[in-house]
């Protein structure tokens, strides 16, 4: 199976590709991970990953600056029905619009909006930064084997904005931080994590393994 990691000038590509290679080896698979800025490679890949590190508007500009990339993402997801994973801002870009540094259009694959995290408890700091546990919203193959709940495994978060989905069913896990912070979304064959699986050790590698095995 071929896995394309989209290179559009975002950081953390090395970590992400190494984490995928690690998860592939751990699962005894023989998938091949490619970091690519070539839309043709993305369109044909069996699975596509959109990492992201930065501000929504800037990431959108960078994605648009790779000719044909947005079209390739749509071809992969819509025409070919391939499983897709967005990470952090890569996940946020999947929704309708982002409100960080002005209003910016997203790819509108998961209806919703990226809004500032606003904990109900004013003592809680923003950005939401560090290790938090996950609260599942029902079963989902991406959560297989991951210990959730207050005593569960931890994911590494680093964000001041999060995806607020129009359809609550699209959120499959949240983190508790003075209210629900969206942690994992999935809509058809499109999924995303707000946290960084490539930095989330056991939980992150399990999630990547689940994504590789996912048959949406």
């Amino acid at each position, binding site marked *: 199976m071929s896995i394309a990691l989209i290179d559009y000038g975002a950081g953390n590509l090395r970590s992400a590709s190494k984490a995928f290679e690690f998860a592939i080896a751990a699962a005894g698979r023989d998938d091949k991970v490619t970091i690519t800025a070539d839309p043709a490679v993305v369109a044909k890949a069996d699975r596509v990953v959109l990492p992201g*590190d930065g501000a929504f508007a800037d990431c959108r500009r960078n994605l648009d600056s790779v000719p044909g990339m947005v079209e390739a993402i749509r071809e992969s997801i819509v025409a070919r029905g391939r499983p897709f994973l967005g990470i952090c801002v890569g996940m946020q870009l999947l929704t309708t619009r982002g409100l960080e540094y002005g209003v910016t259009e997203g790819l509108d694959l998961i209806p919703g909006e990226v809004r500032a995290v606003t904990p109900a408890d004013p003592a809680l700091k923003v*950005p939401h930064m560090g290790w938090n546990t996950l609260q599942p919203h029902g079963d989902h193959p991406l959560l297989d084997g991951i210990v959730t709940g207050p005593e569960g495994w931890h994911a*590494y978060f680093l964000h001041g904005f999060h995806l607020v989905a129009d359809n609550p069913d699209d959120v499959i896990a949240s983190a508790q931080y003075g209210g629900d912070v969206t942690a994992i979304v999935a809509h058809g064959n499109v999924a995303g994590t707000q946290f960084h699986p490539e930095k989330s050790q056991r939980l992150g590698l399990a999630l990547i393994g689940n994504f590789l095995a996912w048959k949406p």
Partner: protein
Amino acid sequence: MLKTRVIPCLDVKDGRVVKGVRFVDLTDAGDPVEAARAYDAAGADELCFLDITASHENRGTILDVVARTAEQCFMPVTVGGGVRSVADVRALMLAGADKVAINTAAIRDRRIVADAADKFGAQAIVVAMDAKQVSHGSEMQRWELFTHGGRNATGIDAIDYAIDVARLGAGEILLTSMDRDGTGDGFDLALTRAVSDAVKVPVVASGGVGTLDHLVEGVTIGGASAVLAASIFHFGTFTIRGAKEHMAAFGVPVRLE
């Protein structure tokens, strides 16, 4: 629940760890990547590299360290030291840093904070502040920023500055007490509390840790979201796990897995 972070900090000069790391038997105690791997395995929540390379020609060495670390361990990394421009921030982010700490450059011109946050998001931009108490006796406590390892006064009030850089887009404050740094006497808790109360963003307490109680106090009294220490971990006085178990025993939520 979000956990309080324990962050070891490594001083790196010309691509090598200053004084070395001795808490485990490393093949090369001066290799920052080996040290990062050891801290990753030990359960550190993040790692901080502080680049103290003096010559501009050798500034590229830290990029190589960050890139190799990002390839070899799945641990969040903050990199600071000598960051002068948005281009420097970009280079470190592309090498694999999760956050970049800006210190003197932001004192010179605070616009770098806004410009970097606009590009990389506030969550990736840390402003590192080195503060010293300047009030005397029974005066109301005041702290000012210092540069060059605490030698040069800037006359800038630490609290006002923290508020301003947080407004401009700093996503975190790395707060070092230059009065306490290297003393082992514990954090400057009044300073930590004053900054933490003044800003909405997380504050990382730094400077002065000598005992595990100091780590607890930084959170419970100082209000810090994370605690940073160097020598107590590097030389094996305490383990990361021991530190976290101690914090947990005093009711500080930590990640133990």
